[in-house]
C-alpha cells in the first residue's frame, strides 16, 4: 500500500472534475456555488495535509494513474512545490468565489450561473493537473481545458465588450496552445516519450551526441512561446487587459491570480524535469525570457500608469508582474527561479485581493470603474479600502509585505549574475517607481473624503468582510514576514524537480 497522502493529487483533480461534471444536475446557481466553495475548500485542506507531510521530509513522489506504470500509463508527480501551489490555488479560488459572490450573481443571468460554476470547477481541475502532471500530453489536455474555461468565465458576463475581448483572448490563447502542441509532438518525434523524466534522459543523450540540435532548439522555443502567450508575457500579452478588466470580479481575480500562474508553474516544471535548467540556459531561452521580462515590466507599468479604468489598470499591472516572474527565471541563477516562485505566490494573493477590493469600492458609486471617481469610497467600505491599501503597498514593495520579499530576493539573485545585474536593477527600480506612481494616487484618492459625491448604500458581504479580504491580506503579510523561510522551502523543492 502507498502512504495515504500519495493519493491527494489525484483525488483533488478528480474531485474537481466530477463536481464540475455533476453541476448540471443541481437545481440552481446558488447550489452550484455552494458545491464549488465546498470543493475548493476541500482541495485546500487536502493540499495543506500534503504540504504538512512532504515539506518536512522534503519528499518527491510519483503517482500512477491506473493500473499501468509510466511511460505506458499516465503519471502524476508531487513534492513540496506542487503541494504549495495546490494549496494556494485552492485557497485563492475559495476566497475569490466568496469575496466576489455578490457581484457574480448580479453580473450573470440566473439561468446561466450553473454553467459558470461548471467552468470554475474544471478550471480548478486544470490548474491542479497542470501543476501535478508528470506527462507532457496530459499537460496539454489540461491546458486545453483551462483555455476554454478561462474564456468562458470572461464571457459569462455577456456584455458586448466582454464578448469582443473574449474572442480576442480565445484566438490568441489557441495560438498559444497550438504552438505548445506542435512543440510536444516534435519532442515526441525526437525522443519517443511523453513522460517527463524519460524525455529528460533522451534530451541529455541528444545534447551530448549533438543529434537533432535544430528540432530540440525549436521545441524549446515553441514550448516557451506557447506558454508565454498564455501567461501574457510581453509582447504576447495584448489580450490580457481587456479580458481581465471586463470580466466579473471573481473571474478577474481568478484569471490574474491563478490561471496565468498555472501555466508558468508548468513551464518551470518542464524546464527542470524535461530539459534540465542547464540545457535551457545553453539554448539561450533564459536570455530571451530575461529580455521579454524586462520589457514587460516597463511596458505593463507604463500602460497601467496611463489607464483610468481601475480594473484594466490592475490587469496591466499583472502584465508587469508576469515580467518580474520571467525576469527572475531568466537571471540564470537558482535563487532567481526561487524568487520568481515567491513572486508567483505573492501575486496569487495580492492580485485577487486588489480585484476584489476594487470591485467592492466601485459598488459604492454604482459600479463606477473610473479611478478618479472612486474618491472617498474607502470611507464607505473601509474593509475594502484597507485591503486595497495593503495590496497596493505590497505591489509598490513596502517592507513587511509580500511584494517586498519577492523584489528583495529578485535583486539578491540579480547580484549573483554580474552580466545581468545592471539591466535588472535599473528596470526593477523604474518599475517600482512606476508602481508607486499609479498605485499611490489611487490609494490617496479612495481615502480622500468627498463632500459632493453621492455614494450608494453598501450592502455588506460578510464573506468578503470577514473571510476573503482578511485572509488574502494576511497571506500577503505572511509571505512578507516569512520570505526567507519560503525561499528556503522553494529552493529545496526546486532541487527535487
Amino acid at each position, binding site marked *: 500500500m502507498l502512504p495515504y497522502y500519495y493519493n491527494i493529487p489525484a483525488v483533488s483533480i478528480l474531485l474537481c472534475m466530477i463536481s464540475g461534471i455533476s453541476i448540471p444536475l443541481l437545481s440552481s446557481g446558488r447550489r452550484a456555488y455552494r458545491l464549488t466553495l465546498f470543493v475548493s475548500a476541500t482541495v485546500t485542506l487536502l493540499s495543506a495535509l500534503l504540504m504538512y507531510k512532504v515539506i518536512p521530509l522534503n519528499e518527491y513522489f510519483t503517482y500512477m494513474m491506473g493500473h499501468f506504470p509510466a511511460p505506458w500509463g499516465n503519471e502524476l508527480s508531487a513534492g513540496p512545490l506542487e503541494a504549495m501551489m495546490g494549496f494556494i490555488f485552492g485557497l485563492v479560488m475559495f476566497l475569490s468565489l466568496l469575496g466576489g459572490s455578490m457581484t457574480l450573481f448580479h453580473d450573470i443571468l440566473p439561468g446561466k450561473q450553473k454553467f459558470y460554476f461548471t467552468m470554475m470547477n474544471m478550471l480548478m481541475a486544470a490548474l491542479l493537473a497542470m501543476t501535478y502532471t508528470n506527462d507532457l500530453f496530459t499537460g496539454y489536455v489540461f491546458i486545453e481545458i483551462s483555455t476554454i474555461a478561462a474564456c468562458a468565465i470572461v464571457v459569462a458576463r455577456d456584455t458586448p465588450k466582454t464578448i469582443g475581448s473574449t474572442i480576442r483572448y480565445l484566438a490568441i490563447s489557441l495560438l498559444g496552445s497550438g504552438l505548445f502542441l506542435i512543440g510536444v509532438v516534435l519532442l515526441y518525434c525526437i525522443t519517443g516519450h511523453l513522460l517527463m523524466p524519460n524525455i529528460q534522459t533522451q534530451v541529455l543523450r541528444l545534447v551530448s551526441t549533438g543529434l537533432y540540435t535544430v528540432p530540440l532548439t525549436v521545441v524549446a522555443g515553441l514550448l516557451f512561446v506557447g506558454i508565454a502567450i498564455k501567461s501574457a508575457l510581453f509582447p504576447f500579452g495584448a489580450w490580457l487587459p481587456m479580458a481581465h478588466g471586463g470580466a466579473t470580479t471573481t473571474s478577474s481575480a481568478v484569471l490574474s491570480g491563478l490561471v496565468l500562474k498555472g501555466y508558468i508553474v508548468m513551464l518551470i516544471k518542464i524546464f527542470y524535469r524535461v530539459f534540465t535548467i542547464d540545457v535551457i540556459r545553453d539554448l539561450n531561452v533564459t536570455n530571451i525570457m530575461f529580455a521579454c521580462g524586462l520589457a514587460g515590466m516597463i511596458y505593463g507599468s507604463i500602460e497601467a500608469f496611463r489607464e483610468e479604468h481601475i480594473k484594466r489598470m490592475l490587469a496591466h499591472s499583472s502584465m508587469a508582474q508576469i515580467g518580474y516572474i520571467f525576469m527572475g527565471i531568466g537571471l540564470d541563477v537558482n535563487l532567481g527561479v526561487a524568487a520568481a516562485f515567491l513572486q508567483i505566490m505573492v501575486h496569487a494573493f495580492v492580485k485577487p485581493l486588489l480585484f476584489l477590493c476594487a470591485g467592492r469600492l466601485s459598488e459604492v458609486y454604482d459600479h463606477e470603474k*473610473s479611478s478618479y471617481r472612486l474618491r472617498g469610497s474607502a470611507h464607505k467600505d473601509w474593509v475594502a479600502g484597507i485591503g486595497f491599501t495593503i495590496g497596493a503597498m505590497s505591489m509598490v514593495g513596502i517592507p513587511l509585505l509580500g511584494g517586498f520579499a519577492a523584489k528583495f530576493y529578485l535583486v539578491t539573485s540579480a547580484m549573483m549574475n554580474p552580466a545581468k545585474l545592471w539591466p535588472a536593477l535599473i528596470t526593477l527600480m523604474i518599475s517600482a517607481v512606476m508602481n508607486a506612481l499609479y498605485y499611490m494616487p489611487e490609494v490617496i484618492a479612495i481615502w*480622500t473624503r468627498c463632500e459632493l459625491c453621492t455614494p450608494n448604500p453598501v450592502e455588506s458581504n460578510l464573506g468578503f468582510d470577514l473571510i476573503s479580504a482578511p485572509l488574502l491580506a494576511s497571506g500577503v503579510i505572511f509571505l512578507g514576514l516569512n520570505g526567507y523561510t519560503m525561499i528556503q522551502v522553494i529552493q529545496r523543492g526546486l532541487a527535487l524537480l
Partner: protein
Amino acid sequence: MNIETNFFKRLNDWVNGEADRLFPELHETDAPKPPEPVATIGPLPNKDVLFLTSYQAVALIVVIGMVSILLYTVYKLPLFGVADNPAVNEVVERYVEKGLEETGAVNVVAGMILDYRAFDTLGESSVLLLAITSVMMLLLKDEKNTDPDEELIEAHEAVIEDHNRDMILQTMTIILMPAIMLYGIYVILNGHLSPGGGFSGGAILGAGLILFASGFGHNRVKKFFNMKTFRTLTTIALLGYGVLKTYSFLLGANHLPTGIPLGTPGAIFSSGLIFVLDICVGLIVACTMYGFFSVFSRGEI
C-alpha cells in the same frame, strides 16, 4: 472646461480627483449608455491606412518566418518508419505486444486511449462538455440576447418552414436514418474489437440526428431529444466515465485489483471497462454534436 497639459498639474488633478478636468469623456459605468450614432463609411484616415499596411506586412513576415522554421525542423526530424527512429521504443512495443493481454481490447488504440492513458481521454471528453457548455452560456436564448420582434419573425418563419419541408431531403432521411443510427451504434459497441469507438461512433450518431433535424425540423427532434434529455445524457455519461475511472485509478495506483473481468478477447462483452467507457464517450460526442448544431441554429436544444 480647460484640460491641463502640464504633467505635474495633471498628477495633482488626479490626486485631487478632478477627473472632469482631466478626462471628461471617461466616465465609465455599467449603466446602459445612449446608443452611439451609426458610423458613416468613408475613406480611412491616413494614419489607419499606414497602420493596416504595416500590420499586414509584419504579419506576412512573421508567418513566412514561422513556416520556414517549422518546415526546416520537419526536414531535420528522424525519418518515419525506419528502425532507429526514436519513437520505436519500449513504449510502443508494450502497447503492441501486450496490449491485448493487458487490456482485453483487440483494438490496440481503444486499449491505449481508454485504459493505458484513460486519464487523458477523461480530459478530452471534458473538453467536449466544456465546449458545448460555453456555447450554451453564450447562445442559449435569454433576456439579454433576444427581443420580441425577432422572436415573432422567427416563429413566423418556423411555421412557413414546417409547411414547406423539402421532400427529397425527407425521403432520403427516412431511408438513411435507420442505417446511420444503427451503424453509429455498431461502431460504438465494437470500439474495443475493430477500428472506431466512442469518438467516431458518436460523431456518426450526432450526424444522424442533425440530418433528421434538417429534414423534419427541430420540433420533431424535440419529441424525443430535448434539453432535459441532453443534460441528463451528457451528465450521466461523463459522470459515469469519471466515477468508474476514479475507482479504477485509485485502486490501480494503490496496487489493488478492481475485480473487473477482462472477458474473452474478441467477444462483445469483453475488455472490462473499455466497453462501458466507449458507450459513455459515444453518448457525449453524439449529444455535443447535435447540441452545437441546435444551439447555433436556434439558441435552444
